[in-house]
């Protein structure tokens, strides 16, 4: 029962954090939202009994992608511009 509830709540949280990452104009906060999405996604992989994919997603998605995105933001501009 609890597992089914988690299976419903986690994808909703993943979609919410992905939407937040699109809507935010501050790109640094957007990168943090992408990291939160990756962490929730790795939790979902772990619940679906794929621990291999969960470890890879937590390492690459939540840590290294965030580091690369933050370095790219540091090299360019922080705020998104209105077109």
């Amino acid at each position, binding site marked *: 029962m609890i597992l089914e509830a988690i299976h419903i709540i986690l994808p909703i949280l993943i979609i919410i954090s992905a939407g937040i990452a699109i809507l935010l104009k501050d790109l640094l906060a957007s990168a943090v939202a992408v990291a939160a999405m990756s962490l929730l996604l790795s939790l979902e992989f772990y619940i679906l009994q794929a*621990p*291999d994919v969960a470890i*890879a997603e937590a*390492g690459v998605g939540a840590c*290294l992608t965030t*580091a690369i995105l933050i*370095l790219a933001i*540091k*090299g360019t501009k922080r705020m998104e511009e209105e077109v």
Partner: protein
Amino acid sequence: MNGMTKIVKTIAGISFPFIVIYGLYVIAHGHLTPGGGFQGGAVVASGLALILVAYGSKWAATKIKEHDLSLLESVGAIGFITVAFFGILFGGVFFSNFIVGTDLLFGGIPLAGAADINTGGTLPLMNFAVGLKVIAGLFGIVFIMALAISKKEESA
């Protein structure tokens, strides 16, 4: 890119050994527990990226050169291919698991329900090679980006 505050440096220094040891455990036990070369290498590279961000790329550039990282990555790739080609030499086909069933290191076959690290044949060797390759490759990407951005900040 300069380092961060003393609080961040201390916490990064405390948690760095645990992250690296967990990653090396995932690589070494790739044929027994979930994970493998790629997953463990990603975890170790994450710990190294944490140290790089906390202490700054100027400090990191005094410790390691980018040339060494590309050398390590090439060593990992060549080791992986070499183990695969030894399969042709000893087992007849590419990627043949020629060590399993012999008296060499990693040559054992596990009993039912028991886990032994001295099993797996060529799988642990390939795990080590791919782990080295992934550590050097993923950390090298972050490291060279940080170096380029710090150079850009200095010139601006």
